[in-house]
C-alpha cells in the first residue's frame, strides 16, 4: 500500500561498515524477499526500515515522505522471537492493539469500542486458526502458533508495510508450509507491501514477487569490516522465473548456504 525508496543507504557501527550503497525501490503491494549470508546486514536493513535504527547516510522514503526515525503504525513487524507479549493471553495480545491505538490515559478502551475490538480480535484469532488457544499465555503456545499470533497482532495494527525478519526460521518444515499459505492469503487480502528476510531461498522464491541478494562486493583482507554489503542481485519473479531452477541455483550459489534441491522442493510446496 506504500512504496519504499532507498537511495545510497549506508550503515556503520563505529569502524565496522555493515551496509553500503544500497539502492532499491519497492512499489506498493510488492513482496520483497531478502536473502544473503548470515551476518551480512539483512536484519540491520530491516531495523532501519522499521525505524528502530537510523542509517548513517543515505535516504529512506516510505510512503509520502522521509522515514520517521522511530517505529510507527505505518510499518508492522514480525520478528523470529519475542514477537508477542508474554504477559498477555492470545486474545489479550490482540485486544492490546486497539488499546494502544486509542492512546488514552488508561491505555485501554471501554464500552462499545471495546466490544468492537473484541469482535475484531476474535475474528482475527479464528482467521489464523487460534480460536482454541484464546486464553493461553504465549509460554504454552508452540512456535507455529506464536508466529500465527504475532502475524495476527501485527495485521490488526493495519500497517501499510509488513516487515518480517526470518519469521519462520525456527519452525518445522511442515508448519512452515502452513505458514506460507497463511501469509500468502493474508497478503492477498490486505495488499500491503511486504519485506521479508529469510535464510531459506526456497521460501524467498515461493513467497516473494522479487528476490534481493545482499552481499559484499569489495573486500579488504587487512580489515574485513571496512566494506559493507549491498544489493548484488535483484530478480523480479514471475511464473517462469519462479519455477526456474537456473535462477534458484544462481541465488543459492551467491548466498552459499542452502542446497538448490531442497530450495526447489520448498518452492514447489
Amino acid at each position, binding site marked *: 500500500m506504500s512504496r519504499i525508496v532507498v537511495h545510497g543507504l549506508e550503515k556503520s557501527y563505529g569502524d565496522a561498515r555493515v551496509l553500503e550503497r544500497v539502492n532499491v525501490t519497492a512499489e506498493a503491494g510488492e513482496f520483497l524477499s531478502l536473502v544473503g549470508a548470515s551476518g551480512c546486514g539483512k536484519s540491520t536493513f530491516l531495523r532501519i526500515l522499521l525505524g528502530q535504527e537510523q542509517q548513517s547516510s543515505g535516504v529512506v522514503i516510505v510512503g509520502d515522505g522521509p522515514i520517521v526515525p522511530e517505529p510507527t503504525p505505518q510499518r508492522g513487524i514480525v520478528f523470529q522471537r519475542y514477537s508477542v507479549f508474554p504477559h*498477555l493471553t492470545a486474545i489479550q495480545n490482540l485486544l492490546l492493539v486497539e488499546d494502544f491505538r486509542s492512546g488514552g490515559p488508561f491505555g485501554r478502551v471501554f464500552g462499545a469500542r471495546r466490544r468492537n475490538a473484541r469482535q475484531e480480535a476474535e475474528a482475527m484469532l479464528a482467521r489464523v486458526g487460534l480460536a482454541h488457544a484464546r486464553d493461553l499465555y504465549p509460554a504454552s503456545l508452540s512456535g507455529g502458533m506464536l508466529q500465527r499470533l504475532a502475524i495476527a497482532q501485527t495485521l490488526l495494527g493495519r500497517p501499510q508495510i509488513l516487515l518480517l525478519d526470518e519469521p519462520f526460521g525456527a519452525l518445522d518444515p511442515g508448519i512452515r508450509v502452513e505458514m506460507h499459505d497463511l501469509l500468502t492469503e493474508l497478503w492477498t487480502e490486505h495488499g500491503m507491501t511486504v519485506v521479508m528476510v529469510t535464510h531459506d531461498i526456497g521460501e524467498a522464491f515461493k513467497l516473494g514477487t522479487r528476490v534481493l541478494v545482499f552481499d559484499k562486493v569489495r573486500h579488504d583482507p587487512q580489515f574485513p569490516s571496512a566494506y559493507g554489503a549491498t544489493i548484488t542481485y535483484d530478480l523480479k519473479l514471475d511464473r517462469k522465473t519462479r519455477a526456474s531452477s537456473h535462477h534458484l541455483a544462481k541465488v543459492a550459489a551467491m548466498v552459499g548456504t542452502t542446497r538448490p534441491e531442497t530450495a526447489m522442493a520448498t518452492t514447489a510446496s
Partner: protein
Amino acid sequence: MLAKEMSARDEVSETGGEGTARPSPPRPKVRLRMINAKVSRGSALFFGGLPFLFVAIAYLAASAQRLAVNPSDKLLPSPVQMWSAFLDLATVPDKRSGDLILWVDTYASLIRLFAGVGVATFAALSLGIAIGFIPRVRAFLLPFVTVVCVIPPLALLPILFIALGLGETAKITLIAVGVAPVMVRDIANRVRELPPELVAKAQTLGGNSWTMVLRLVLPQVMPRLITCVRLALGPAWLFLIAAEAIASTEGLGYRIFLVRRYLSMDVILPYVAWITLLAVITDWLLVRLSRAVSPWAHPVEAR
C-alpha cells in the same frame, strides 16, 4: 527370543518377590551425576527438617545441662520458661501501661516496616521505570541514584534523628532510604533489559510512552518488583531494629534491646523467633501475590 523373555521374567520375579501381580517396570540401575539425582517430596521434607532438628536438639541439650548445674541460669532458658514469658507478654496486660506488650510491639514495628518498604516500593516503581525507560530521566537521575546506593544507610541515622526528630518519620525514612536506592536501580535495570523487539512492536501498534509504561513495562517488571520487595525486607528489618534500639518507646527491636539489660534470654529468644515467623509469613504472602498478579511469569511446573 523365547529364552530372553524367560530370563527377563525370571529377573522380574526375583526382584519383585513372589506373588506380586504386576512387576514394576524395570528401571536401569545407573549412578546419576549428583546434579541430576532427583529428590522426592518425602526426602526433601526429611532432609529440609534435619538442620532445624539438629539446632533444636543441640539447644535443648545445652540448656538442660546448664539448668541442671544452676536452676536460675538465665543464659539458655528451657522451652517452658520461654513459652511462659512469651505468653505473659502476649496475654497479660502490662502493670504500668495496661497494654498487651507483644501486640503493641508487633503493631508498631509492622507499621514502620510496611510504611518504609511501601515508600521504597513506590519509589522503585516510579523512579525505576522512569530511569529505565526514558533516556532523559536516566541521564538526569542515574548518576545520583548510583552514588546514593553506596552510602551506608546506618551512617545517615544520626542525621535523620537530628533532622526529623526521634519520632516515626525518622524510622520510616531510614527504612525507605536504606532499601529504595537498590530497588530503584534493580527495576531500572530490569526495564532496560526488556527485549527491544517488544518495545519496537508496541510502538508499531501505536503505543506512546505512557501507554507503553502502563501496558508493557509495568506488567513486565511486576514479578521483579515483588522479588525486589522480598529481598529488601531483610535489610528493612535490620534498619527497623537498629532505629528502634536507639530511639523508641515500643517495637520488637526496642523490646529486645530493653530486656538485654536484664539478660532476659527467655524474652529475647521468643521475640527473635516471632520476628522470624513474621518475616517468613510476609515472604510467603509476597510469593502468593506474585502468582496472583503475574500468572504468566509462574508457569505450572511439570510434575
